[in-house]
């Protein structure tokens, strides 16, 4: 059998459970719209440009390759 103080407590708890009416949506949505979350976009990295012209590099590689072949041929024969 609940005591009178327990009944009073339950009545009080029930009064505190009565909802406070809130009106927060306008302010919240305005704040969210003003500062949308940062969207992380993929970073497109540019293809690194070589410092020297490409034809020069290609030529250098070709001569180096020919030079190596010559050396091998000379050693072999």
């Amino acid at each position, binding site marked *: 059998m609940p005591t009178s103080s327990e009944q009073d407590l339950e009545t*009080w708890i029930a009064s505190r459970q009565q909802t406070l009416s*809130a009106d927060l949506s306008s302010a919240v949505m305005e704040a969210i719209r003003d500062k949308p979350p940062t969207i992380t976009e993929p970073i497109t990295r540019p293809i690194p440009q070589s410092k020297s012209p490409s034809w020069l590099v290609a030529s250098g590689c070709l001569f180096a390759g020919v030079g190596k072949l010559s050396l091998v041929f000379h050693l072999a024969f």
Partner: protein
Amino acid sequence: MTEEEIFRVIRRVVDGEVEAFEQLVLHYQDRLLRMIATLLYDERRLAEDVAQTVFIEAFRRLEDFDPARSRFSTWLFMIARSRAINAMKKKSPILLAELPEREAHVPDPGHREDFEALDLALHKLPEKQKRAITLVAFEGLSYAEAAQIEFTTVGTMKSRVSRAREFLKTSINRN
């Protein structure tokens, strides 16, 4: 809204439909305000500010919400708990005698003095007991949910609620 409906709204927001978040605000704002107001000595204006902050933070962290770990309301209340505690630390000490008058529905005018005594006693509780009784008695959360919000065990939560109730009852008897 059912839990499933809530998850669908969350998914829409995470997928970029910002306006859908308003549905979550409308669904939880009353409960959230009530919980925060109780923790902040029934100061409604401060509670509204904190509640707004909670919703904004929840929006920004929505991708972190994991439905496997908790219900959305539990997660939201965890943020609210943290914000309310921070607000209390920043707020200058207030005199309990100057507590704002709460708009309470008093079924029997004879209960008014008892209710005022209980409101005072509530705010004299140790903070952990006050949060415990707020979550379980006023907000109707289970001991498990309340324990999760308070980062403690169910047993400890039950103990806090029990002690809070005993203290509150003594305030009625004295009155």
